[in-house]
């Protein structure tokens, strides 16, 4: 039922991935995916031959047409699905990996603080200590007054912050995020994303983000990977983002390199999707 911990020290030297400058390959990776093939049942593989790497302290985004298997790649890395072929190597322990889901499905029968404390308890903290730590995290998220509420008593944005506290409280060294903010309205989304960005940069957490939002991908990331149209999706291109850190979401969009790169990725994505934007 549970993914086996797949912690393995990765040798710092590795073969460059397709489209990756050789110099980058010399850095140690937190995630290294090689020739990943994933399929559900007997269907045609969703992804085939996907290779990518996330280095220490790097934010990497995975974009692509819908149905291109972005989430599937993430789930393989998290150990929620077994690969059909290829390898997934983690440079951190499974316990140091956090997964932020698209939905904010918290345990409905647990209060906000109990939801946050659960992960801490599973990481070996004593119950009282876990609750105290959960309270500190909720306060940091601006939810101090709401810690005793059940998920259904919270707004979408508040639930997302609880989910974020739940994951960040475990001090992950790798954060996997599957369109985590898709369901939030624009203003809430901006604030939550900005707070998360600040935290990631401060703690230099490695991030792999799946998103359909090219601007968000570029504003947050050091590298953007574009997946081709599925099935049998593969990495179509890899784009380094040359915006200095620390960043803020608005400032990043004003950087001179932002618009040209956005146009570039957008063109490649459009070519992949076809003139009607039809990805079915």
């Amino acid at each position, binding site marked *: *039922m*549970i*993914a086996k911990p797949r912690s393995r020290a990765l040798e710092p030297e590795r073969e460059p991935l397709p489209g990756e400058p050789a110099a980058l390959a010399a850095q140690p990776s937190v995630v290294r995916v090689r020739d990943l093939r994933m399929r559900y049942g007997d269907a045609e593989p969703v992804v085939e031959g996907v290779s990518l790497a996330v280095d220490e302290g790097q934010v990497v985004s995975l974009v692509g047409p819908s149905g291109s298997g972005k989430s599937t790649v993430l789930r393989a890395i*998290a150990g*929620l699905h077994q690969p059909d072929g290829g390898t997934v190597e983690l440079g951190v322990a*499974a*316990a140091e*990996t*956090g*997964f932020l*889901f698209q*939905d904010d*499905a*918290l*345990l*409905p*029968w*647990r*209060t906000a603080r109990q939801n946050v404390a*659960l*992960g801490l308890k*599973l*990481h070996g903290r004593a119950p009282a200590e876990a609750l105290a730590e959960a309270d500190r995290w909720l306060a940091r998220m601006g939810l101090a007054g709401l810690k005793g*509420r*059940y998920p*259904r*008593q919270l707004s979408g944005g508040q639930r997302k912050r609880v989910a974020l506290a*739940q*994951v960040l409280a*475990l001090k992950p060294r790798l954060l996997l995020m599957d369109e985590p903010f898709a369901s939030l309205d624009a203003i809430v989304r901006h604030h939550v994303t900005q707070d998360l960005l600040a935290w990631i940069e401060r703690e230099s957490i490695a991030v792999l983000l799946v998103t359909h939002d090219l601007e968000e991908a570029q504003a947050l990331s050091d590298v953007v990977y574009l997946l081709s149209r599925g099935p049998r999706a593969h990495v179509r291109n890899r784009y380094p983002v040359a915006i200095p850190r620390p960043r803020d979401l608005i400032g990043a969009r004003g950087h001179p390199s932002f618009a040209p790169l956005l146009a570039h990725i957008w063109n490649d994505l459009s070519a992949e999707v076809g003139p009607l934007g039809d990805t079915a």
Partner: protein
Amino acid sequence: MSELFERRWVRQALALTALILLWELLSRAGVIDPFYAPPPSTVAVTLYQLFAGGEIWKHIAATFTAALLGLAGGLVIGAALGFAAAMIPPLADVLEPVMILLNAIPRVILAPLFIIWFGIDIGSKVALSLVLVAVLVFFSVYSGIREVDTRLVERVKTLGGGRGTLLREVYVPSVTAWVMGSLKVAASFAFTGAVVGEFVASSRGLGYLLSFAQSTYNAAQTLALILIIMGFVLVLFWLAGRVERRLLHWRYA
């Protein structure tokens, strides 16, 4: 006055009172035959006499004991089987068709068989009540476990939870919600089992009194007994509601 009238329960109470009054008048005037539909006042007097004699308590106790034992046994056995079937697929292959069959038939047809097996005493009533409840609870637990929110399962897994954690934090609370949803129906089924069992063959219980009243064409007593049973089922409903609100407080908070 008009403000009061806007409340739903006030309108419901008024409608009920009007119906009882109309019945009383029509029955007294001889428009409807009091032999078949005795006026409510007569039913009220019969009800009073049933309690005044004190005999009724023995019968109420018999029915209640059978219903509560059946409810408790049905909850335990139904939950255990549902849990086992969801966890052990080969067992489900055997159990599911039996339960589907038991669910499809009107289970009260088992009453005569249970009386042959367990005699006319409380045993056969508990058995019938238990079967009625257990099948219902089996499906609640079985589908509760199989249709547990996979997003919650994955979330707990990625937080580092193992089988024990999943069971405690996800499966048990989720199944509790399902079972609580059918607790009221289960309480009513338990009473049905007890009363029908008594109706078929017994020497005490509300079902026995009902059967006796019917055989003597005593419509007033039959109606009075029906009112008593309805009253007790309503009390059970209220209790089940209390238990549900307590166990699922996160849903009502």
